[in-house]
C-alpha cells in the first residue's frame, strides 16, 4: 500500500536521459512509457529558472534598493557586513525578492537569509520560483 503510494512520487523525480537505445526501449515497453507519462511536466511553464537568471535577477533587486551602492553588489555580498543594510532593510530586501520571484518565503527561512549566496540558493532551489 505504502509502496504503491511511494511509486508515483519516486517516478515523478526520475528523469530519463533521451539517448537513442533508451528511447527505443521506452517505445518498446510499457513501463517506460508510463514513467515518462508520470515524469511529464505538470504545468505549462515547465522551464525552470536557470541559476544565472536567478543570480542576475537577485542582483538587480539588490541594486534597485535605494540604500544599496550598486557597485558593491556581488553574488557573494553579505547584506549587513558588505552592503551596510540593517535588519529592517534585510527584511525589505527579502520581501523584494519574494515579489520578484512570486514566492512567499516562510518566516523561518526568511530569518536565515542574510546574504546574497543564501538568497540565491533559496530561490534557485525553490520549485515555484518564477
Amino acid at each position, binding site marked *: 500500500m505504502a509502496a504503491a503510494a511511494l511509486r508515483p512520487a519516486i517516478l515523478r523525480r526520475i528523469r530519463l536521459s533521451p539517448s537513442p537505445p533508451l528511447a527505443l526501449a521506452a517505445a518498446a515497453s510499457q513501463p517506460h512509457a508510463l514513467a515518462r507519462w508520470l515524469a511529464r511536466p505538470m504545468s505549462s511553464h515547465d522551464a525552470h529558472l536557470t541559476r544565472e537568471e536567478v543570480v542576475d535577477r537577485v542582483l538587480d533587486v539588490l541594486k*534597485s*534598493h*535605494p540604500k544599496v551602492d550598486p557597485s558593491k553588489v556581488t553574488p557573494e555580498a553579505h547584506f549587513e557586513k558588505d552592503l551596510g543594510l540593517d*535588519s*529592517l*532593510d534585510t*527584511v*525589505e530586501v527579502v*520581501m*523584494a525578492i*519574494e*515579489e520578484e520571484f512570486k514566492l*512567499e518565503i516562510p*518566516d523561518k527561512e*526568511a530569518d536565515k537569509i542574510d546574504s546574497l549566496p543564501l538568497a540565491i540558493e533559496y530561490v534557485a532551489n525553490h520549485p515555484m520560483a518564477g
Partner: protein
Amino acid sequence: MAFTMRAVKVPPNSASLEEARHRVFDFFKQACRSIPTVMEIYNLDDVVTPSQLRSTIAKEIRKNQNITNPKVIDMLLFKGMEELNNIVEHAKQRHHVIGQYVIGQEGLVQELGSKDQGSSDFLKKFYSSNYF
C-alpha cells in the same frame, strides 16, 4: 471603527524587547505582502511602485527606531495594524493613501515655503504641522 474592532485583536504584551522586535518584522512583512492588494484597490499603479511603498513603510517604522520600551512598541504596532487594516479594507480613499504614503508628509506642506517668512517660530512650526 467597527472594521477595526472586528479585524484587530489585541495580542498579549511582548515579554521582551526581542519579541517586540520580532513582531515589528512580522508586521512589516504583512504590510509588504498586502502592497499588491492595496495597489489594486486604490489604483496606484500609475503613481507609485511596490518598492517605493515598501520603502515608505520601512521609513514609517524607522521613525520609531529609538524606542526601547516593549509596551510602547506594542502600542505603535497596534496602531500600525489598525492603519493597515483600514487601508486593506478600503476604509480610506485614494487621496488619503496618496497624500500620506506616496507624496508624504513633507510633500503636502512644501508649497507653504515663502508665505510664513517673518512670522514667529511658533507659527512656522504650526504651519508645517500641528504635531510638535
